């Protein structure tokens, strides 16, 4: 087992190098250059000598391979450059924004579990009844509603029927005002967690159905233990193992899937930072600096 883990960890190294090459290439392949991104229209007024000296200053005159090694050593020492727009170190921006995205992802998982597990249990216990069919239809709809649609509809319903604008006002952090923070985060979390709750429901249901046919459940029932305890003490504990695995895998996807939800609800997380950087660069001069993308 230890050998297997060591092998897996070592196999990560070439993959990480591959990821770094892909990121570096993506940065270099985007039309435009760092100088244009920094100076904007004034870049056109530079003389050839000025441009060359700026290229030398930023290391853009080096070969792509040399540039990669310089970039890589910067990344490994925590230097991701400066944001062109905000003038702050990119690493600081990431540290500022990441906790917000993390909070959103954790809240989404909690919502998904709160909705998905009870629904999955009920669906499995009352398998093939109208209750089960309704729960499965609900799960299928949950899986089919894209989060940008659900987010838009939530904002519409809240603003029209309840006169609440969940995407208005400045973001307040959890440590400043937990109540206000929760008010701001709950609807984005519902948006992000809905389709995941459908996956949790389906996994809980199929796992429960499998567990409920096991011998130890039959034994527990034949001992006269009430059904609630059979489910809670014996079935649920085992049925939740694949659900926990699913949560582990999906959590990573949730962290990386907040782009649209953060955009809709104006949550200043890492997703919004990334999308804003990409769209700004695309819609502007289509010029890209490595630091802005990071």
């Amino acid at each position: 087992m230890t050998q297997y883990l060591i092998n897996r960890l070592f196999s990560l190294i070439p993959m990480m190098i591959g990821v770094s090459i892909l990121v570096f290439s993506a940065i270099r392949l985007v039309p435009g250059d760092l100088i244009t991104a920094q100076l904007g229209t004034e870049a056109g007024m530079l003389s050839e000598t000025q441009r060359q000296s700026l290229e030398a200053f930023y290391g853009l005159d080096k070969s792509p391979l040399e540039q990669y090694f310089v970039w890589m050593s910067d990344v490994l020492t925590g230097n991701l450059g400066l944001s062109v727009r905000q003038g702050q170190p990119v690493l600081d921006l990431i540290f500022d924004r990441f906790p917000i995205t993390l909070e959103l992802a954790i809240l989404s998982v909690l919502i998904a579990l709160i909705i998905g597990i009870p629904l999955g249990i009920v669906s499995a216990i009352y398998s093939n009844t109208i209750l089960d069919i309704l729960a499965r239809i609900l799960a299928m709809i949950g899986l089919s509603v894209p989060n940008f649609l659900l987010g838009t509809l939530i904002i519409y319903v809240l603003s029209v029927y309840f006169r609440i604008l969940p995407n208005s006002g400045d973001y307040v952090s959890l440590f400043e005002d937990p109540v206000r923070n929760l008010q701001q985060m709950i609807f984005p979390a519902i948006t992000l967690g809905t389709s995941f709750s459908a996956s949790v429901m389906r996994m809980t249901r199929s796992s429960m159905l499998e567990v409920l046919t096991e011998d130890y459940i039959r034994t527990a029932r034949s001992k006269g233990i009430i059904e609630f305890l059979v489910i809670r003490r014996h079935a649920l504990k085992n049925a939740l193992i694949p659900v926990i695995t699913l949560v582990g895998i999906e959590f990573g996807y949730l962290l990386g899937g907040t782009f649209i939800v953060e955009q809709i609800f104006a949550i200043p997380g890492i997703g919004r930072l990334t999308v804003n950087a990409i769209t700004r660069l695309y819609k502007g001069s289509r010029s890209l600096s490595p630091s802005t993308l990071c």
Partner: protein
Amino acid sequence: MADHSVASLDQNQWQRKLQHIWRERGTVVGGVIILFFLAIGVCGFFGITPYPVVEQHPLDRLSAPDTTYLLGTDQFGRDVLSRIMKGTANSLQVAILTVGISTTIGTMIGTIAGYFGGRLDNIIMRTMDIFFAFPALLLALLIVTILGTGLYNTVLAISIVYTPIFARVARGQVISVKEMEFVLAARSLGGGHFLIVIRHILPNILPVMIVQVTLALSWALITEAGLSFLGLGTQQPEPSLGLELSSNRALAEIAPWLILYPGLAIMLMVLGFNLLGDGLRDLLDPRTR
């Protein structure tokens, strides 16, 4: 006692019937939804729409749905139904082309990796893992930023994102099929690698790949709509369901039909592919039988 057995037999039969109806109905409903949207998409593609999609009717701006404009008009007086029809055509076009490209390339890559195994398999699959390290939408956004927006660039971007998924599924299937006796028999009869793969392996991984294709169509639809929603997919004045939803968000309070109908169209299409995919998985995937 006998009565009890009969009762439980009846109950089991009912349960089986209910299960059967549920499964079949889901698949049929999914199929009908997809056929409906395919018909709408074909009409949109060939311009068979109530009004030209970019034609503006300034006097009828933000008209609520009525007999003249069945699904209302937008802020420029453009017919929402016509734009949904063309948007459906664009979305389906992207989804079908994307899944077609990624299935073909992914299956080829996965088959080579799974069939030959060893170092080649390791190199191919670790390369695929590099793409898996990126969230799908982020990778698509990056590629679109490099290539530029537009329908075919969107297709290329989403194809690159989904190819590793097909490669991984195909590889797994090929690894299990290549050890089967009929493959060993073909090999012992002197069959070449190409012949074995084409005649014996690919037909046997096809059912699982078909299920994957159906489900991937729904993901591709969502990714395309997501890219357009963020302004990096289809560009105005060309309609796209995601773009319609995004560009009309601010008007939702006074003209809810502008977000409800495009949203409903996306949701129903994704639902259709999911239902069809689930049904086909029950039918074709041996692991779920």
